[in-house]
């Protein structure tokens, strides 16, 4: 196998993901509407409840909507990552997963390519959100739009890898609701998406510690700083490590020799 074969394979997987995305515009809009509802209603309502002092990377007092924008971008990535990976578990997708798995390229590559293809679609949605967010005067500097790209890709990979891991490891994923309850909501609320960590620290030290190790917090912070052209090194390291761990475990989970896939498909 030469690199060109890998490239063509990736292009094929990405094209398919893109076509599916075009075919499911409803999914796109609902993925976009969700954070916008948060922005339009939640942020407005909480504007006077939660005071946000001047914390980096912000250089002045900011409206609450500006504070939660990075968290909502990360939310788009989180939902998409979970959805695209979990769709593999459902019968609808199981067939195409088989087709993917009998390609003569290494499994780790196929899974990573599928992940990356999903991330590309997520990133486009994140930019669409940023464009609409201008209405709420969420206006990072122009270079922020460029600097945020790697942060979006890394965050998207981390959450996609987590979804992939869940889809490979958990046998009974009856519906998306259980994932919402046990993964998405805890990850989202126990993070710095809606309130600064120092606020949480004042309220509960335990919760603060949970938030501090939550990889989602680091995705939010990486995006937050990147939007202002700054790098948050700790978050970057945590995200790279989390992505590597989740992806390795997911590839392991999809290895037939470990039998996770076999056990599930045998049911």
């Amino acid at each position, binding site marked *: 196998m*030469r690199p060109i074969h890998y490239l063509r394979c990736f292009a094929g997987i990405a094209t398919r993901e893109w076509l599916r995305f075009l075919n499911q515009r409803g999914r796109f809009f609902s993925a976009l509407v969700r954070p916008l509802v948060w922005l339009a209603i939640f942020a407005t309502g909480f504007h006077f409840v939660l005071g946000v002092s001047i914390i980096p990377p912000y250089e002045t007092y900011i409206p609450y909507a500006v504070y939660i924008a990075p968290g909502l971008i990360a939310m788009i990535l989180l939902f998409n990552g979970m959805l695209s990976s979990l769709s593999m578990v459902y019968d609808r997708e199981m067939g195409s997963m088989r087709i993917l798995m009998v390609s003569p390229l290494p499994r780790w590559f196929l899974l990573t390519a599928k992940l990356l293809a999903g991330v590309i679609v997520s990133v486009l949605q994140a930019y669409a959100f940023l464009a609409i967010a201008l209405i709420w005067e969420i206006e990072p500097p122009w270079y922020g739009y460029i600097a945020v790209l790697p942060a979006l890709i890394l965050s998207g990979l981390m959450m996609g890898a987590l979804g992939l891991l869940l889809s490979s490891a958990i046998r009974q994923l009856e519906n998306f609701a259980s994932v919402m309850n046990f993964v998405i909501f805890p990850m989202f609320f126990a993070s710095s998406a809606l309130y600064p960590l120092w606020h949480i620290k004042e309220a509960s030290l335990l919760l603060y510690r949970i938030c501090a190790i939550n990889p989602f917090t680091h995705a939010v912070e990486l995006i937050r700083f990147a939007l202002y052209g700054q790098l948050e090194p700790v978050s970057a390291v945590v995200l790279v490590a989390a992505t590597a761990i989740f992806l390795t475990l997911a590839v392991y989970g999809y290895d037939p020799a470990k039998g996770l896939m076999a056990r599930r498909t045998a049911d």
Partner: protein
Amino acid sequence: METGDIGPSPPFRGEREGPVAERWEGEVGGTANQLIGPPHPALSPRPAGGEGKTHTSDPGSVGENPVSVGPAFSVEALGHRFGPRRVLNNVSFSIAPGDFTVLLGLNGAGKTTLFSLATRLYAQGEGAIRIFGMDIRERMLECLRQLGIVFQQPTLDLDLSVDQNLFYHCALHGLSHRDAAQRIAAEIERVGLVEQRREKARQLSGGQRRRVEIARALLHRPRLLLLDEPTVGLDIASRQFMLDHVRRLCREQGLAALWATHLIDEVGEGARVVVLHKGEVLADGAAAQLLGEMRAPSMRAAFETLVQEREAA
């Protein structure tokens, strides 16, 4: 129900005498076009782990056919269990290039398990599966290049068009867009779906979807085709089309095909048949010969006799 005993009456094996494993090790007993020799490493088509040269004029593809010898597909003493339940027990048989072999068994006989093992969707423990002499555990990726598969479960993406589904498959096999376009045009014509190319798979009938799947399985030019119950749910005309199509491929292109089915009437006169029942091979040989030796009026009668004999044993 014992492990070494493969067929209740040895003459069934006809010209393919003895358990497959023995044939490998020792003398070659096969039809004229069958075994040239055991899969000695020196005869293997590609150097292990290497990229390998293909002998075709199309360097852009990864699904090309290396020169190789030996059976297209062989399983040797294959076993598998789900927890305490044994679904395959000491299954051995082989398919020569150009052979059309029907794997006949009722639902639950272990056919799909065998296919899942051969495509590495399940981990394989007991016994060995070889594709053109290559053990799938050692050289899975090379094996996959030689393999075209039609799964029992529908695997087309219903929201994509026929073309899009086919191009996706080509990409997964590393084909360039130009090669893919040429091959898709040829295969889709052979299955008579030129006019449906731009339609979404969802709009096709069950028979048409199956035809697309078979066209897709051939795009990377495999030399071995595995079909798991490819005619389930199809009407008579579509079933006949599928059967004729695959048999023609075997005849004209030397493709080896393993056609798993529970529909006894799909075992044509000239076919070779492997009867699988409750995870064990009950018979393995040319259909006509099997009927003759069992003095059975039809394949159905022969099958029922075999099953009864096995149940009584």
